[in-house]
């Protein structure tokens, strides 16, 4: 379950890597909207908007409710599980950084601030 959650978070973040999708996501953060509303505001066709919304929905970032004949999309409240996923990732990263530091043999004074980047990703 945990693995599933983590990979889902990765998918969600990956989905936001697309600039148009991120714009749609941000638009929905402002207010819920239907496909036609979004297509009217963005330089993207309705089918393209629908496709982006489908991806965002699949990874759990947005949800839709039917209002009359329209599907209105809004952000999916992430709930506490989202926070857990985020912190899980954060602490894993932080402890890995801590391990790299603590295993360096040079001692350091408490006040010392090292500006060296800690294990930047390639």
């Amino acid at each position, binding site marked *: 379950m*945990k693995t599933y959650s983590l990979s889902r978070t*990765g998918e969600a*973040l*990956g989905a*936001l*890597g697309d600039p148009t999708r*991120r714009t749609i*996501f*941000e638009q929905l*953060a*402002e207010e819920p909207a239907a496909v036609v509303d979004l297509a009217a505001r963005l330089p993207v066709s309705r089918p393209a908007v629908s496709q982006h919304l489908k991806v965002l929905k699949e990874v759990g970032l947005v949800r839709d409710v039917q209002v009359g004949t329209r599907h209105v999309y809004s*952000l999916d*409240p*992430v*709930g*506490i*599980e*989202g*926070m*857990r996923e*985020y*912190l*899980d990732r*954060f*602490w*894993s*990263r*932080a*402890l*890995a*950084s*801590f*391990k*790299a*530091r*603590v*295993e360096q043999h040079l001692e*350091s004074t*408490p*006040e*010392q*601030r*090292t500006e060296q*980047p*800690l294990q930047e*990703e*390639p």
Partner: protein
Amino acid sequence: MSSNPTAVSTSITVEAPVERAFRVFTEDIASWWPSEHHIIGVPLATMVFEPKAGGAVYDVGEDGSRCQWARVVAYEPPTRVVFSWDISLQWQVETDPARASEVEVRFVPEGDTRTRVELEHRHLDRHGDGWEGLRDAVGSSGGWRLVLGQFADRMRKASVDRR
């Protein structure tokens, strides 16, 4: 691994004596804290972890400003430290202690040169109504929009390695 729905836990084993592990984690926190995870709004100069119960944990900006984001709840060298997590769902300093979560770190010696570090971040529910704050956070600059964007950029770079 915690099954508590309002907590996350993780652990790591480091090749260092327990005293050193404890000291680096606390007083030398600036040397390892992920550099992109600071809520102070100006370039970071250092971080301070006051080594005592009731102490403060704060970022110090290059302009001298201070941003306290934790309070030391328990300080028991070299085996245990507990501090509050005074960071809100909107990724800003939480001034109401009742809405802060808590981090406990235990340092378990495994011989003279190895230490197991067990971390639990708990009472996440104190932050409020789940993470439905996402919507508000995304709308605020420097909030989730920034965090998610950074992660997304990072992942995109990792997978595509430049367009």
